[in-house]
């Protein structure tokens, strides 16, 4: 029986909080399991460093992901190379797995559009900042695959619990149901939309059960259990690509988890939530859970953990060096990418800008 065949109010789990096995361990080779662990460590360390860069004034506002590595890495590892990913703005970990270099994530939050230029071959849409606005895109992308008879690929869309309140969530999932598109809608329910708790977003008992109204499948998973997330995502992707006769392609996954830190570096969560609650969820930290499991099953030892730690630190340090060495983009880029060809108006404004820039230099523009 597929892991998806259960009530949306059940929660799929593989590892308990102590890393002991409480469900069916998905079929993942040892190397990939260790790689998942490494990606999670990398995402966590990156996140810590990114927050500190913002604090030091070396980067703008940044949305931290600590606590959410299990959901991001567990789901992204399940994607096949030619599947697609349509992210919100907090998916740095998932994007990393899908081939977006950390340097680019840093550049984006340092205010460079270049951070959004996905490398060739990395099937990632640019992150959407307006909440839920990417969900219809994901449906459209999945629909395009189906219309071109390429539904052996799927489109994964990430969004948060707050997004389920927006109209775009409804419209995106409704279209997916009507046109039976090869989509997985992955809701990172981290309990808080800035200061508004999950209970205030909806009177529904779970977010997963919203799928029922669209005629698609909904399933809830422990989002801080990377193996459970992998198992559920894998099953949903399989169904999206190869549905049985009585199955629909799309699935809504609610990954129940917690954001350990602030919504963004501009936010102070101590105003609206208790330390006690944070501590309760920190006990579910996905990283030690997977580490315990991997150690107990002989897949990791002190030596390999140390090596991973060292390599992760080096990789993040290199990415920061590379991003900070990137020169300020040339202002001409503002004008160059607005249209395939500059319109006469844009061209005239570009010329006026160039004349001013020549006359006054950067001092004529840059503020303190």
């Amino acid at each position, binding site marked *: 029986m597929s892991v998806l065949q259960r009530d949306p109010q059940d929660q799929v789990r593989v590892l308990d909080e102590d890393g002991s096995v409480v469900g069916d361990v998905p079929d993942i080779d040892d190397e990939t399991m260790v790689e998942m662990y490494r990606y999670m460590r990398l995402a966590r360390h990156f996140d810590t460093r990114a927050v500190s860069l913002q604090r030091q004034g070396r980067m703008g506002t940044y949305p931290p992901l600590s606590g959410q590595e299990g959901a991001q890495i567990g789901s992204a590892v399940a994607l096949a190379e030619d599947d697609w990913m349509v992210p919100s703005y907090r998916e740095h970990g998932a994007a990393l797995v899908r081939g977006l270099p950390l340097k680019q994530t840093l550049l984006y939050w340092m205010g460079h559009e270049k951070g959004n230029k996905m490398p060739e071959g990395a099937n990632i849409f640019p992150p959407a900042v307006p909440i839920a606005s990417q969900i219809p895109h994901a449906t459209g992308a999945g629909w395009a695959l189906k219309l071109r008879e390429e539904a052996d690929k799927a489109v994964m869309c990430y969004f948060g619990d707050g997004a389920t309140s927006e109209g775009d969530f409804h419209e995106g999932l409704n279209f997916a149901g009507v046109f039976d598109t090869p989509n997985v809608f992955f809701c990172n329910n981290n309990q808080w*939309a800035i200061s508004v708790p999950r209970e205030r977003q909806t009177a529904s008992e779970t977010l997963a059960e919203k799928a029922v109204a669209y005629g698609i499948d909904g399933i809830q998973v422990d989002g801080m259990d990377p193996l459970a997330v992998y198992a559920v995502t894998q099953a949903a992707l399989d169904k999206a690509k190869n549905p049985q006769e009585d199955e629909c392609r799309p699935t809504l996954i609610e990954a129940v988890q917690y954001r350990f830190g602030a919504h*963004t570096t501009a936010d102070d969560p101590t*105003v609206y939530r208790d330390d006690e609650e944070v501590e309760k969820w920190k006990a579910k930290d996905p990283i030690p859970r997977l580490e315990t499991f991997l150690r107990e099953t002989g897949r990791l030892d002190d030596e390999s953990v140390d090596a991973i730690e060292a390599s992760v630190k080096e990789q993040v340090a290199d990415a920061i060096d590379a991003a900070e060495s990137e020169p*300020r*983009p040339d202002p001409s*880029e503002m004008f160059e990418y607005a249209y395939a060809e500059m319109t006469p108006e844009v061209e005239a404004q570009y010329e006026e800008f160039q004349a001013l820039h020549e006359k006054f230099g950067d001092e004529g*523009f840059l503020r303190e």
Partner: protein
Amino acid sequence: MTEQNLTIVQAVRDGLYTEMQRDDDVLVMGEDVGKNGGVFRATEGLWDEFGDNRVIDTPLAESGIIGTAVGMAAMGLKPIPEVQFSGFMYPGYDQIISHMSRFRTRTRGRYTLPMVLRAPYGGGIRAPESHSESKEMFYAHEAGLKVVIPSTPYDTKGLLISAIRDPDPVIFLEPKLIYRAFRGDVPEDDYTVPIGEAAVRREGTDVSVFTYGAMTRPTLEAAENLAEEGIDAEVIDMRTISPLDREAIVESFKKTGRAVAVHEAPKNGGLGAEITATVQEEALLYQEAPVKRVAGYDVPYPLYALEDYYLPSVARVEEGIRETVNF
């Protein structure tokens, strides 16, 4: 009257507080406006003071926020929905354009919408994508709405109170670049600053410079710098972009015969175009030089590494004024 020394964002809070004290029908709603006190702290302490029914944390849904506020206002409440950044107003755009602006007209006055939709707008704070745009003309173009943009703490409170008391829906856009940039004296009591009246911020005889919101300060700085070159610029803060104070525009222009418009919103279809048309229609024979527009470029607002090149700078404003004066 007791005075307080407040920033613009504190003056917003003070205006809300003052009207909520005075009128039980006034309520605030939006994302994170309650316990959190707003992401910019514009509603700080109001939830403690007025409780959950008058300071309402809503689900994350701008169409829901604006649409339910329309329903409340039609029933006689005075809701003040907040959208966290003006860049997130668009899911509610249908509600604004199809309903908020038209309820009075459609029902021949049977229903009216005494509501104020507040949002911080504009660039210059190194914010993430979609957080820095100036799209006020979307709303100025829509009949049935009033669009107010303050630039000082005093005006912020006085205009906000006018907006709340106004029988028609008002879009109240707050320049977040200067939310905390400086302080000004603000009376503790309630007072109003009339909607639809511009303010002369600097008197001058050579050229009229029309601006509003966060661009008022660099424009004034440019005017002061140019005084050293012997150019005497008059600076007018429009304060309301719809209805526009055309009388103030024409009066100043008749005196100087030269005009510059400064705004961070894109040049095409910006308020500068409306100001230009006004002087053409009303004071053509006084005109000594082409009207100059110093504005955002007609390209998508860049991420923050380039935003200083996009926003009108003091040097750009000065050059625009010189060009007009030396024509």
